[in-house]
């Protein structure tokens, strides 16, 4: 291999001016300076993140816990009083809870995409962010899983969703998309958790030995339990790496299947606005879109707080932004296609629903008394603005390198994607075939409280994760880094 060096511009936000840095093509991955660090330095940097947190961390966790508490109180009221306490009623049987469910399942897609799909496609920039994204997947799917149970109204009977032998010969209906959903979500949750825990084992061994080295015996003993006697022998690595590859191979179709199956909850129904074949790819693209936006929403502050410019570099953020931009275009195209097909189908019901979404006067919400605001209309225009228009600046590299701009855009995408889910769930049920069957939906405070609580649940878990477990895969960072060689560079 030629021994030339390449020049690459790396903009470092911690400095006032961009600087040009020489990156040897043999040493690490271009754009991720951490891959030029020694193995020991990578260990030290990661351990530093697990040190005693700054008091502001506790304040942040307290804020998340307050949201969680609000959710818990709302949940208690909902379960105690019953589903009648929500705004869900005929004809809108699916409201905030199913919106939240679809939203959180979507958020959960980025982790598996980054950890499995980009692993198989050998995208080196995933290394620094995949562990956090994977943790987000696990927490988002756990959050999502609560909503269908809650939505049933009697969550203590949730086991009825599982096919188990009973004296009444009563089996679940396997031809129903709702039964498919139970299988899809539980499989996704199980595989995501296993994949996450599997990747953690070598890192827990690192933490165990580093804790011992530093004389922290109690910590070492706790980490040793999770390290499961890992020593890093070639026999362990060979099975581990093969297992990891198999898991990536198994998780990859799951990324695409789970949200396809969630979309069929809608598409299998004959309701106008739902009964369309575009839903599966449309939902999957939207899930990846929202998931990656959430990854950026969370990891940009993490990068700033922990000074991780060498790990979560601008190069990495650029790559994520490019995928966000690509999926934004797919989502925008899907919105346009929905309208075109509604018109082209000639079905008056389809046309009506797609007329009502942008122009219809559905439920009104009066903030000021005289000027009612249509909530579904608001949802529609927020969806278009946040998901299609707001990401357009990401075409410019300058914007992609601006952390504040990326963070704001990703925040808007999170908002837009929640409203997209509401737009799908709510508006079609409000206006189905027969005007006699039309109705309105208003969320109650309990539903709003539970929705806020779900964000509290997700962010509390993530904040605890950041301080309890290595937020980056130490083993993979080392694998991507230049190994110590006596005779110079190694051949990639």
């Amino acid at each position, binding site marked *: 291999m030629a021994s030339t060096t390449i020049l690459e511009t790396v903009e470092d936000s911690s400095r006032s001016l961009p600087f040009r840095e020489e990156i040897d093509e043999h040493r690490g991955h271009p754009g991720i300076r951490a891959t030029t660090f020694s193995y020991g330095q990578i260990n030290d940097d990661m351990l530093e993140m697990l040190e005693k947190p700054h008091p502001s961390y506790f304040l942040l966790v307290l804020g998340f816990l307050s949201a969680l508490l609000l959710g818990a109180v709302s949940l208690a009221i909902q379960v105690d009083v019953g589903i009648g306490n929500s705004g869900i009623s005929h004809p809108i049987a699916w409201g905030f809870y199913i919106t939240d469910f679809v939203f959180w399942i979507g958020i959960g897609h980025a982790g598996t995409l980054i950890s499995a799909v980009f692993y198989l496609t050998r995208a080196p920039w995933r290394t620094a962010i995949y562990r956090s994204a994977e943790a987000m997947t696990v927490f988002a799917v756990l959050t999502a899983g609560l909503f269908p149970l809650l939505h049933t109204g009697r969550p203590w009977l949730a086991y009825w969703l599982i096919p188990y032998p009973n004296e009444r010969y009563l089996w679940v209906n396997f*031809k129903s998309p709702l039964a498919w959903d139970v299988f899809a979500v539980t499989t996704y949750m199980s595989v995501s958790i296993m994949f996450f825990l599997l990747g953690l084992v*070598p890192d827990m061994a690192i933490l165990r030995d580093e804790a011992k080295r530093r004389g922290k015996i109690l910590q070492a003993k706790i980490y040793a339990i999770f390290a499961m006697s890992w*020593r890093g022998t*070639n026999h362990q690595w*060979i099975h581990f790496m093969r297992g990891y590859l*198999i*898991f990536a191979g*198994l998780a990859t179709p799951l990324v695409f299947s789970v949200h396809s199956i969630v979309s069929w909850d809608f598409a299998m129904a004959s309701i106008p606005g739902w009964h369309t074949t575009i839903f599966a790819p449309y939902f999957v693209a939207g899930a990846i879109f929202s998931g990656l936006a959430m990854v950026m929403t969370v990891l940009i502050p993490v990068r700033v707080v922990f000074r991780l410019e060498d790990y979560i570099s601008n190069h990495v953020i650029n790559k994520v932004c490019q995928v966000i931009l690509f999926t934004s275009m797919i989502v925008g195209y899907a919105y346009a296609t929905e309208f075109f097909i509604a018109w082209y189908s000639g079905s008056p019901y389809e046309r009506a629903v797609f007329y009502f979404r942008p122009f219809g006067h559905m439920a009104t919400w009066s903030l000021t008394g005289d000027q009612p605001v249509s909530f579904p209309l608001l949802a529609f225009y927020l969806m278009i603005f946040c998901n299609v228009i707001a990401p357009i600046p990401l075409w410019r590299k300058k914007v992609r390198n601006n952390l504040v701009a990326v963070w704001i855009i990703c925040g808007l995408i999170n908002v837009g994607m929640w409203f997209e889910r509401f737009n799908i769930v709510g508006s079609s049920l409000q206006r189905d075939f027969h005007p006699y069957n039309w109705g309105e939906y208003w969320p109650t405070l309990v539903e709003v409280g539970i929705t806020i609580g779900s964000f509290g649940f997700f962010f509390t878990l993530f904040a605890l994760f950041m301080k309890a477990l290595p937020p980056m895969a130490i083993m993979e960072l080392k*694998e991507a880094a230049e190994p110590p060689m*006596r005779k110079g560079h190694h051949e990639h």
Partner: protein
Amino acid sequence: MSTKFSGVWGTFEYLDDTTEAIEELRKKGVEPTVLSPCPRHEIDHALGEPQSPLPFISLFFGAIGCTIGYSLPAWTASDWVLPVGGKPVVAITPFTVIGFEMTILHAAIFTLLGLTILIIIESLKNPIPKAAREYLRFQRDRFGIVVRCEASQYQLYEDLLKKYQAEEVYVEKG
């Protein structure tokens, strides 16, 4: 199986020293155990590209999961027949979703179990000395080579490891 270890082990700072020592050991007919802070393809190459049987375990249990995924809905649909809307009682297309999910779930669970069992078996077959297990820098920045051998070969392998710049070499006399 005796777990009492007899042999030689050494630590290395550099990967190329480690791989050269492995190659030399393999030329002498020894299959060493190598410790490293992360997986390195150079080590696999020096060890002759060993393979894991794990994919066969995943495939086998994935196939079982697929069978369960199709047969459970088919059996339950036949157990109490509910003919609705002219749809077939045993409907392959909707059952494919369950078949797919069960394939993935079973393959994943048994990959994890298989991986754990294979690693336990390998650890029993290729024990490493307690001192090497407790050497804390293998998880940080050092490579290690463990050679299981008779007392008569201690000197030979100790010299070989030192020849390839081992930082520390230890003899474990059973």
